């Protein structure tokens, strides 16, 4: 029996083509969907970055891409030393919320040398000078640091805020005692 003589040859051909078409179309759409859903990572500049303030000292270091910096600060015995605007924070992107967070402090509580310090205060000000938060490390003459924390605060796009720092050592404090404080800036986009 010849295939040509079968009366349903054309509908069968159409059905076959229809099924294969549906298969190809569905599989293609699935591949395209997997492409759309594929996560991609694009390198962009940090939305919030550090910037040298008007009281920036040339001996301090500003890291690549302004994402980190290292400040060497002093503390005078029985006298408060204020750095008005050593470091700025700029927002080059969208509105965000930020906070300062303690990562570590190297003269750990319990070390007798801690009592040489009275306080080390980091205060975050907005562009108008309003205080948005602070991290105050105080000893009250003991060998224990207070553990400061700060809540998130909203920072608008294109804002440039500054961090003021105040230090004070205890009266009769030993010279050349160093406390290393590592602070992170948390940014929620």
């Amino acid at each position, binding site marked *: 029996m010849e295939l040509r003589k079968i009366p349903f040859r054309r509908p069968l*051909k*159409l059905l076959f*083509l229809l099924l294969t*078409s549906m298969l*190809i*179309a569905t599989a*293609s759409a699935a*591949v*395209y969907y997997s*492409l759309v859903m594929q996560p991609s990572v694009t390198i962009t500049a940090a939305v919030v970055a550090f910037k040298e303030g008007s009281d920036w000292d040339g001996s301090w270091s500003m890291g690549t891409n302004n994402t980190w910096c290292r400040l060497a600060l002093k503390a005078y015995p029985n006298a408060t030393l204020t750095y008005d605007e050593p470091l700025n924070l700029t927002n080059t992107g969208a509105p965000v919320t930020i906070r300062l967070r303690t990562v570590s402090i190297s003269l750990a509580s319990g070390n007798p040398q801690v009592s040489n310090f009275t306080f080390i205060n980091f205060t975050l000000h907005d562009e108008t000078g309003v205080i948005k938060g602070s991290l105050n490390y105080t000893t009250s003459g003991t060998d224990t640091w207070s553990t400061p924390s700060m809540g998130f605060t909203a920072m608008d796009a294109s804002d440039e805020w500054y961090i003021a720092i105040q230090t004070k050592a205890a009266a009769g404090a030993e010279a050349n005692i160093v406390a290393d404080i590592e602070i992170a800036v948390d940014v929620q986009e």
Partner: protein
Amino acid sequence: MASELLPEFFALLGIDLFLMLSLLSCLLDDRMPKALPYVYQIAALAGFGHLLVSRNFFTVFGDYMRFWYCFIYLLVSLANIVAVNIYFAAVKKQWTLAKVWFGAVSFPTILISVFFVSDYCYLHGVHFPPFLQIALVVSAVIMGTSFAILLSTKTLRSQSKEEKEVR
């Protein structure tokens, strides 16, 4: 946020056009070569392979390269649609079928393709000049109107009457 078009969308559109061509050429198999539906199915399968390659080398091929090879695939499928149109008009001398094909297949597919390509270009910062956009809208209106007139019952009746008289 709506995700923007990927260049592979043009390949997907090309695949669907080839599949549509395959089914239409099967329906019109008394006027077209018998192997044509299968050829178009193979072309659609090639497009599918094309998508798979694109997915596996997603990070290797840049946006520019991906756009061009997908766009060329779409152009090939559109060229096939136009070629079938010309085949009906010039080779088979079936003017009515050629007109219907133009109105129902060639023109809409070209218009849809132009729409998506211009949308893709707009999203990627390439702007079509205003006169081209106006020309596109004007030609769409004119062609749509002429299609409606061509396919009106009155015109089709007079056409079939003329054909009968010729026979």
